[in-house]
């Protein structure tokens, strides 16, 4: 009796897993399907009657897709570099140096993230206007770095905490100054966390839409990917969903490639420094 129960239980579990997997995958399947359809102008009706690869070529000839893709990749890469620098410095300082106002400052960093960047869009717009950074990718890089760094300092600090301080002390006895310790001892040991910070900030910059849409409004060529794709749907009437979906598919590919090849770092970063075992 027990075996039968176990069998049924197992089949049930697999069945549920399968259904959940299907539910998870359906929207993506839909996107790919529409991207292969011909002239789909409506997402609600199952409009795909013919399959064609036309849309992908139309994507490159009719829209500025290649610009958008390059912009996003550039934006994400530079944000990644900037965030890594900022986060490493800050996490190191928080973790290893005891200084005046350390806990208060750390709590401040944690708390201030609570304020959603979307609400500060008007302010950011005016700041950029005053600094002349509107419609320039540099401005967006800075904002995204701020956004990414604020969120990543917490887990970075946690990880730095696990690097034994005795190493620092040993180096100091040998006469190394702080900077050497940081670059030659601490950072190499923190490579896993650096990888995590790099990847997470890359993803944040790549996927970000709200701020980008406020700041990059003028030139179509300057827009990052998410904004560019949305511009295909917002402005003019007569949206061609198939071309949009083709853009969506191609636009997601860098993320997918990045993720599946560097899974370890994605997943690893979430739990580093947060598990209180």
């Amino acid at each position, binding site marked *: 009796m027990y075996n039968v129960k176990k069998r049924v239980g197992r089949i049930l579990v697999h069945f549920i897993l399968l259904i959940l997997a299907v539910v*998870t995958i359906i929207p993506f399947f839909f996107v790919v399907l529409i991207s292969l359809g011909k002239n789909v102008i409506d997402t609600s009706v199952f409009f795909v009657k013919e399959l064609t690869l036309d849309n992908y070529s139309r994507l490159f000839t009719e829209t500025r897709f290649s610009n958008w893709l390059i912009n996003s990749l550039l934006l994400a890469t530079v944000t990644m570099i900037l965030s890594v620098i900022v986060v490493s410095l800050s996490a190191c*300082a928080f973790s290893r140096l005891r200084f005046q106002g350390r806990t208060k400052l750390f709590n401040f960093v944690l708390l201030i993230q609570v304020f959603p960047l979307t609400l500060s869009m008007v302010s950011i717009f005016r700041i950029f206007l005053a600094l002349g950074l509107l419609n320039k990718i540099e401005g967006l890089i800075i904002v995204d770095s701020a956004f990414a760094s604020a969120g990543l300092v917490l887990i970075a600090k946690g990880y730095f905490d696990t690097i034994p301080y005795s190493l620092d002390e040993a180096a100091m006895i040998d006469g190394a100054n702080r900077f050497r310790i940081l670059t030659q001892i601490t950072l190499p040991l923190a490579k896993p966390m650096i990888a995590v910070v790099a990847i997470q900030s890359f993803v944040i910059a790549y996927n970000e839409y709200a701020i980008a849409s406020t700041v990059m409004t003028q030139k179509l060529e300057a827009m990052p990917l998410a904004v560019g794709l949305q511009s295909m749907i917002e402005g003019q009437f007569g949206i061609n969903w198939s071309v949009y979906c083709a853009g969506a598919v191609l636009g997601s590919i860098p993320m997918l490639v990045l993720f599946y090849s560097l899974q370890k770092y994605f997943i690893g970063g979430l739990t580093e420094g*947060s598990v*209180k075992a």
Partner: protein
Amino acid sequence: MLAYVEKIKELQSKGLTLTNPNATESHISAEFANGRVAMILYGLWNASIYKSMGIEYGISPLPVGKNGKVSKPLATVQGFVINRFTNDLDATKSFLEFILKDENQQRLIEAGNRGDRKTGERNPANISVINSKYIEEDTVLSSLSNIGFNCEPFPNVPEGPIWYNYTSTALRAIFYGDTAGNEVDAQEKLLELAERIRADVALINEIPEKIDIQASHVLIFAAFLAGLIAAVVLLRKATKRNTSQISPLDRTEKLGTKNTMIAWAMLLPLLLLLLVFYVFPIFHNIYLSVTNYSGVNLRDYGIVGLTNYREIFTSGIGGLASMFVWTITFAFMVVTISFIVGTALAVTLDKVGIRVAKVYKLIFILPWVVPSVITLLMWRGMLEDQGLVNQILSLFGINSVPWLSHCLAARASSIIVMSWFSFPYFMVISSSILKSIPKDYFEVARIAGAGRLYIFFKITIPLIIRAIFPMLVMSFIMQFNQFGVYLLTQGGPPGSRLGSPGATDLLITYVFNTAFNTKRYSLAAAYSVIAFCFVAVFAVVSLRIANRKSY
């Protein structure tokens, strides 16, 4: 307007019109392309698609009204506008003169119609272009341009877009009933619409008294602020515990000025970024909220005191309260659902074979990896009345559910969809944490006879919660500040009063809507100050709880 509405309702009752409360113009176009409707009031943006579907179409001229005259619709023009603050007036003028030349207008129209394809996307307004061979030779283009001849250009004023904000909502209520499904009296609703539009136009043109900041006021305010800060500091000193002892586990260096300077130098970039992009906007929002900054007076706005707050707390208080309740509910449910589902999946995948688990994990991670902007649109398409979800349901014989048009259903949909986005995150975290929980816990429980579900809910979940409580809080705050919902529901089925928050409007999406659609930036700033207060209080409280829980 009333006559028009009545006529459409008559057609509707005869079953002669499309019925889709959430239809957009692309739906209309699609129905026409499919040959399911005989006539649409639309443009020629999809002409090539109609042709390829074999639809033979023509353009009917504007109808003649009861007074014997042809109607004069408003037409949005692709015009050229000079900014009066431009730096180089001469260059701008010469550009305008260049672009308005007949031959250049011809080029623009031909390019807009994609050359020989003559798609009809752009109607000429220039007479020489209208009379040109390019237009005259094509029946469709020439009928279109004849229609354009009779149009009145849409005035290019800041008040222009206001009617967009309310008209579709009002019309939807008139034709399909209000959010509870009740019939709405057309005349009443139209009057409400007109009133609302007029009120907004008046508001946008209002120049409230600018309050002159007098020196004495500033001094009083500064003294008050100083007193407040002093009070807080004294309070904290009085309740501070003795933290001077250094625990034996302390492995970092003691206080030192050299260290402090180095530390602050290392922290400078982060602090700078935070100050500029997080702290400054907070104060800037506070400042904006006491002004009358809006789309109309971008340059000459001034401090007007607490008018915005007064407006929020008198006419908007109902909306604010319900939005607040809904946002908290939403965030809480999303976090709970995604956490439980994620953890359940982590537990299940732990038990299933490793290879199978790997495949499933790859699939389940997808919602997290793909940019959400895209998938949100897909979900919106899928949840529409004739969308994929309802079509699948109809295969099982279930009637189509108004996922996005009914209040309660829309709220449920938004919760479910946003949980769909968040569960991979929790699945991954719980999975890693599960690995670090000693198996003995489960062994003991199973030997003692506890059932699977019991183990799950009474042992696994509490353990994981304790480990990642700060993350749950962060996740809650993230969902509270969630903006993606806007792409899904645009604020959901609209509220009963025009301009009040929709059913699925989170605080943020409503602020965004107010700011960017009605262009009342100062009101939006006031709302965001209030929102920030809520969130800040919550964050501080939860941080206290988190600190207490881990020690």
